[in-house]
Structure formats: C-alpha cells, structure tokens
C-alpha cells in the first residue's frame, strides 16, 4: 500500500487520529488512551500486517514528550510512523512489548532516558544506567549533571 491508500484505510480505522504526510513515510498521531488498541489492530489486521517494529524512540519537545514508533510490514513492505504525545510531568503509556517483543528493551531505554512509565511492562527496570539513577532522565533537554556532563 502506498502512502495515500494507507491513509484512507487508516482514517476509516482510526477516525480521531491526525496524519502528516510531509516526511518519507506516513505519520499518524494517536491519543495515548487509544494507543494499545490501535497497536493491536496495526499488528494483527491482515491487510496492514505491521509486524516489524524497527525503531522506538522518544523526543523531548520541552512542552511534551513524543513516543515515536517506526513500523514496517515484512509482507507488504509499507511503512508507518506512529506518534503518541505524552504529558511531560507524568508520562504514561501502555506497553506494546507483548505485540512486538523488541519493544521490551526499547521501552526500558525510553523509561530510563526519558522517564516514560510503561504500564503493564513485564520488567520495567534500569537497563543501561547504574542503580540509583531513578528519577533523573539524562536524555531530557533540561538534564544537568555537574560531574559527568560532557559539553562540546
């Protein structure tokens, strides 16, 4: 499916979502409350078949956080970028680690680096940072560490 066909299809499925076609791939922004059900549809609906989650990341926009999921279908080879905007003071989102197993590690990275709390995650602990770093999120824009900060 190309960008236009995919957009028409997804508009039917998610009437409340907003789209952005400026980039290389189709971008869809979904509300945090609808995210889990939308992820299940994207993965399991036969004509969509987004089975390969190749990039999970978070962007700190200073006013809010955005989780970005890059999806690809290994069968149809179409792409979709799913974005979810989160509150910066209390970021919470349902986990998708049971849908795409790769999300488990990537969500742990987003948890420690950006402080996003993934609900129902099977094993949400620090992965990269040493013990005792809880609560300080190094990848956020306002993070300051007087000892270890590298300024270039």
């Amino acid at each position, binding site marked *: 499916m190309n960008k236009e066909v995919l957009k028409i299809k997804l508009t039917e499925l998610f009437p409340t979502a907003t789209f952005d076609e400026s980039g290389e791939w189709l971008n869809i922004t979904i509300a945090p409350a609808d995210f889990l059900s939308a992820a299940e549809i994207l993965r399991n609906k036969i004509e969509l078949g987004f089975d390969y989650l*190749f*990039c999970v990341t978070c962007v700190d926009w200073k006013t809010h956080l955005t989780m970005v999921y890059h999806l690809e279908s290994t069968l149809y080879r179409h792409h979709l970028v799913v974005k979810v905007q989160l509150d910066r003071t209390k970021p919470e989102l349902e986990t998708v680690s049971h849908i795409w197993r*790769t999300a488990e590690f990537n969500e742990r990275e987003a948890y420690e680096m950006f402080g996003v709390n993934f609900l129902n995650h099977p094993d949400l602990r620090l992965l990269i940072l040493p013990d005792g770093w809880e609560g300080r999120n190094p990848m956020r824009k306002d993070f300051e560490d007087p000892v270890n900060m590298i300024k270039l």
Partner: protein
Amino acid sequence: MYRETEILKQPGAGEPDVFGDMIINIGPQHPSTHGVLHLVITLNGETIKKVEPHLGYIHRSIEKMCESLSFRQFIYVTSKMDYLSSHINNHGCCLCVEKGMQIEVPARAQVIRVLMDELTRLASHQLWWGAGAMDIGALTPFFHAFREREMINDIMEETCGTRLTMNYMVPGGVMVDVHPNFQGRVHEFIKHFKTKIDEYDELLTGNVIFQNRVKGVGYLSKEDAISYGCTGPTARGSGVSCDIRKLYPYEVYSKLQFDEVTETGGDCLARYLVRMKEMRQSLSIVEQLIDNIPEGDVQAKTKAVLKLPKGEYFSRVETARGEFGVYIVSEGGTTPYRIKFRSPGYSNLSALDHMARGGKIGDLVAIMAMIDLVIPDIDR
C-alpha cells in the same frame, strides 16, 4: 509465539528457587563477551532458565553528545559505535544528512563508498569468524582470520589514514580520493582471499566438533526473529529477508549482481552459514566494482555550514550485524534537535534470552558468538 510473556506473568516466575536454582554472572569482563557485557544467568543445573543482560558499562551517550555537534561533526562520533563497521555507520549518517540537504553524491564517490563498505563487511566477518571459532574452542582460525584482516586494514590505512575508525565519509561524498595503490592492493587481496575462503570452510565448517556445537543450538523462528526486531545474519539465518541493500538499495547497490543470503535452519549453524556465504557475496561485489570506478569528483560541492530543513529524516543501511538506522529530528538549526541510532546489536541482543532459554550453559557462548555482538554498538 510470545512465550516469555506468559512465563513472566506467572507469579514467582523467573524468581530463584532456593533448592534448585543458581545465579551466575558472566562479565562485565569475560573473554567470550567481546567487550563489557554483563549477563546474569539463572541456572537449574546446567539448564538456562533466564538470561538477563545488564548494559551500560561503556555507554557514552552518543545520542546526547550529537545534539551539541554540527551536522558535519556528529558523523565522526558514530565510528565509535560499531567499531567493526565504522565505515557503514558513517555511511548511514551521511545518507541521512544528504537526504535532508538533497545533496547528489558524485558517481565516483558512490562506488568508493560501496567498495569501502564491502571491505569493512569482509573485515568484520573475518574477525567474527576468528573470534567466534575461538569462543567455541578452535584457536587456529583466529590466526588465519587476522592474517587476511590485516590486508584490509592496510588498504584502509593507506587511503583513510587509520585502521579501525576511519571517518572517511563526509556529507556529499568521501573526504579524499583513494590512494594510487588502492586498486592494486585490493586486487592482491581478492586473489589471496579467494583461496583462503575455501580454506576457512575446510578448516571449520565441516568440522564435526564444530558442527556439534552449533547445530540445533539457539533456535529462533522466523516469526520471533521479526518480532524481536532481529536483522542481519541473525534474522537471515531464520529465513527472514531483511537485507537493506536489496530491499531499499542505496548508492550503486541496485546495479550490482549479488544475492541476499538466507538460511532456514534458524539455529547457530544457519547464522554461521549466512555469514560465510555473505563473505563470498561481498568479495564478488568488490570484484565487480574495483575495475569500474568512474572518473570524476569524489565530493559534491556543499555549504561550509549545513542546516537541515525542519523535519524528520530516517536512513537505513546494512552493516555487518544488521540494519543500522539513523533518525534525525531537525529544527532547522546547525545541530540536530534529536538523533536516534537504531543499532542492530541492541535488537539482536534482546533475543538472546529467547534463544538461550532451555539450553545448556555451554551453548550460551556459542549463541553469543554467532549473534556477533559488538558491545559499543549496543551501549552507544
């Protein structure tokens, strides 16, 4: 299909059993981890119940560092991630900046880039072959592999100035033209390596002890490989077609004759065979290109200060370990607002627990060797 999730949801699952279970640490310093990886293994006798990786021993926060570097500077930091595929890392970053700036790369530079990529892939696979065999218990292959790898390092040294982190690619092409000896030395290498790759197969592939160590070990099904986001030989050993060079060709890959190697075994032997066959494919690519480097510039004319237009850019390249992705969010300034590196090792490592569970502790080292982990690539 998602077997761990169910196990983890059971109360008490994964918790050590006072009578039977033992917890063993491998690493952070261990000869078989190829870097500072720390694995906490829950064992019942010799059977692995759970493998928990602990990362971050060499985490340098390259993504954060890149936020304060310009679009020319950040490329040099990326060589230090997957230091065995540093050319290909640089390539991915250059492609992403070029995509944003809409820079057309001259034909000569494109061919040189692909040549360097493939030589890097060969060097990386050679090191994997030597070190992987050593992990499994065969010491001789290590010396054979390093003999050939040294030739590639010498070629790199002559043209790029360094042997490991080359920093040779810049947005718009490559930094300087190749050394006058380049073609001659690559020809020499091709002639030498063509006989040696058969020797590799004779020495190790058919060896009964080796086959027993890898056959049927660390099984990963096709569905699981996709779900875990595995790429590169790890996924292609399970029959997943995921070669970015074939699926989304960049530079001159679309004009080249080569096959995407896949195996359907899904075990360590399949991953081994994929890499061995890939070496032959890479050698054939180098052979096709070495006499056909077009004349012309090696660098497109670019502005001194690059400013990527506001937006998001993603580029994907195939490193020796799998798919490497660069995601740049630009606000229109001289530095990226956010950079994310999708490293192949991180996703491949996440499948380690799945592959090793239920197997024997001795097999863990074989599984790790055949995933070909490079820790700086995982930690970033």
